[in-house]
């Protein structure tokens, strides 16, 4: 048993200790794993000493797939030979992360048989990460997990594992069926996950409302955020109850004054009025007064394209390219899926190597992207119109005509197509 003096320091304290867990795998784990975990702990303690990592990548996959496994080979295998391979399987969780204890136990059993016994719920992209096995174990573990009804997630230049918030399953704020959207899109595009051939990674994330509990706008190439078009629903009796409970001043301070567009006024009789033309669907007032306020009935989603982390050009958030898309009927879901397919296809065709779609849009300009996607420009896509006069506008009139035509159509007028 390798001494792990530095890691031992991390066993105190009130928070559950991963070190204690690793040691238990070393000491009480499946017999075939104990040595591996001993060396793994040795290498990790070595990292703590040297303040350096000692893994390198490589190529490992399961039969039939090109991605989904993160291979790790030790650079200090001479010192810690038993953990010289320590691969991870990325496995897609059920949408919304629902489990029974039963299925969790089955996963544990599989991973004890074919892996180290170390599992993360979940990776930052949403995968269950089965961490620590050798090349052979990868295939075996996958086969059993696959039999259990689970499939590998994404890695490499491919469609990645998606995330959706708990939403419809347990949240009154949810404006669309996240499970359906999540499963439909990913399962339709599944080939792009299993056989990586995109210019770079592509992530979907699904949040039922603008609270964005899965961080979609920053962290997804394609973020689907629930919203609504009609008025916020107000139960004035419950408004009064809320005010009676927490106080009038407190309500003004935390609701009225915190609305970003000052769309809320409080009447003298302790009823609320909301100027729904000004409301930007930020969710704040609804969050505070969960009983009294709720999203309207005419629900759907906003879609933001292009979020990503810092590499190359710096952090990007998604751009709201679809301010509203109805998402209720079968046709609505088909339209959404079709749009997702189009965007991924556009990405496949137009992104440079190792370029995220947000970078592509930044490079070619939003108008070019919208044109390719056949989306009409809308002021909701911008904080404000252009400030730069460096642009060629000779077709401005034709473009304006399209707007007027669209507005006329929306107003219910019949216009020749």
């Amino acid at each position, binding site marked *: 048993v390798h001494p792990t003096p530095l890691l031992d320091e991390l066993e105190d304290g009130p928070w559950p200790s991963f070190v204690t867990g690793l040691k238990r795998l070393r000491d009480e784990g499946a017999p075939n794993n104990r040595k591996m975990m001993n060396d793994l702990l040795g290498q990790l303690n070595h990292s703590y000493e040297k303040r350096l990592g000692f893994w390198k990548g490589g190529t490992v996959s399961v039969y039939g797939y090109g991605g989904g496994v993160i291979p790790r080979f030790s650079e200090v295998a001479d010192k810690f030979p038993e953990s010289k391979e320590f691969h991870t399987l990325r496995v897609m969780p059920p949408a919304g992360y629902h489990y029974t204890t039963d299925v969790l136990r089955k996963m544990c059993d599989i991973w004890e048989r074919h892996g180290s016994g170390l599992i993360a719920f979940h990776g930052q992209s949403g995968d269950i990460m089965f961490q620590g096995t050798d090349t052979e174990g990868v295939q075996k573990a996958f086969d059993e997990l696959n039999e259990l009804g689970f499939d590998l997630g994404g890695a490499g230049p491919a469609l990645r594992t998606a995330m959706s918030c708990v939403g419809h399953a347990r949240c009154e704020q949810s404006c669309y069926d996240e499970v359906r959207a999540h499963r439909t899109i990913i399962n339709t595009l599944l080939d792009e996950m299993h056989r990586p051939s995109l210019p770079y990674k592509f992530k979907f994330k699904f949040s039922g409302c*603008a609270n*964005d509990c899965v961080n979609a*706008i920053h962290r997804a190439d394609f973020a689907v*955020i629930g*919203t609504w*078009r*009609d008025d916020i629903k107000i139960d004035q009796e419950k408004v009064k109850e809320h005010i009676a409970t927490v106080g009038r001043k407190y309500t003004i301070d935390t609701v009225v004054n915190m609305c*970003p*567009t*000052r769309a809320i006024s409080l009447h003298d009789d302790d009823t609320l009025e909301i100027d*729904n*033309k*000004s*409301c*930007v*669907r*930020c969710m704040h007032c609804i969050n505070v007064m969960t009983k009294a306020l709720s999203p309207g009935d005419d629900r759907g989603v*906003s879609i*933001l394209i292009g979020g990503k982390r810092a590499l190359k050009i710096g952090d*990007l*958030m*998604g*751009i*709201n390219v679809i*301010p*509203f898309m109805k998402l209720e009927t079968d046709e609505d879901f088909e339209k959404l899926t079709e749009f997702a397919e189009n965007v991924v296809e556009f990405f496949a065709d137009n992104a440079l190597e190792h370029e995220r779609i947000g970078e592509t849009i*930044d490079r070619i*300009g*939003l*108008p070019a992207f*919208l*044109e390719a996607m056949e989306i009409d*420009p*809308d*002021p*909701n*896509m*911008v*904080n*404000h*119109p*252009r*400030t*730069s*006069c*460096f*642009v*060629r*506008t*000779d077709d*401005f*009139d034709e*473009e*304006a*005509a*399209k*707007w*007027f035509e669209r507005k006329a159509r929306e107003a219910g007028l019949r216009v020749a197509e």
Partner: protein
Amino acid sequence: MNEQATTPRMPDEVGVPDPFQYMHPVLKKNYGNWDWHDRPRAGVLRHVSKSGDVIYTVRAGTQRQMDVFTIRKLCDIGDKYADGHVRFTTRSNIEYLVADEAKVAPLIEALQAEGFPVGGTGASVSMVSHTQGWLHCDIPGTDASGVVKGLMDMLHKEFVQEKMPNRVRITTSCCQINCGGQGDIAVNVQYTKPPKINHDLVANVCERPAVVARCPVAAIRPAMVNGKPSLEVDERKCVCCGACYPPCPPMQINGDDSTKIAIWVGGKHSNARSKPTFHKLAVANLPNNAPHWPEVKEAVGKIINAYKRDAKHWERMGEWIERIGWPAFFEKTGLAFTKHHLDTWTGARYTMNHSAHVRF
């Protein structure tokens, strides 16, 4: 090597003249010692000093490009009804300084009688910022004086009263160089086509490397045309900015089909409430329809009217739009939102809506 008969006069490098020699004595006496002001009526300011002194200012509009007759007329009025001390404002209005309240009303009457509108103070539409245009500039796409005259004729009423939500500052620029700056409303030439090159002239007139360097998008390259050194523009790259035209007049950027007018809104210089902002595109491609520019006037009218109807007191144009949102701005003004409203320049990403905040 003969000496010149009369040696030329060497300039006396006096620099910025001392204003105290021209300043109204009440101003001079109370320099740095003012206490408060108010506006007894549109076009009139009353400033009260901590010493108790009071000075009245009567503001009147001018055409800026003034003939000596007009200037002398303004002087005559100043001598007769005021104290012979005047100043001009940042926006080319003339201000009469009057110590005696009794002179204010006759002064106003005299100005009005001579056709000088009294106003431009407080929440009015002040004089449009003026640029040179066809009258004097070497690169103009339109005539500033003409556009300004048209606009101020239309907005005369809003100059002489203070009935807007807050000050409205309009600017014009007669080419895309934009000497007129930012404005609550900016009426600017916007080129819509790449320059047409007169290849015969380039070699003689233009320093080619300097011109190439001037292009913000590197769309210009040296080329041989008809055996002569000339320049070539990559039309897919060109953003029609007109920057190549001043250093190389054979790169003609102006033309009836290409010189159009765009209107921008929401620029703000003051730091009052919100930070200063740049103006944003409202509408482009309006015809350069001299001498009355009716399409421009119509669009400006729509914007001013919507603002006047809808904004709260002290809200500047851009602050109003910020509050109601851009979708409502386009709705209330009846203007179109197009792909050209989506910024494509450096930093375009900072103008995008990276949030789920939407308005319906």
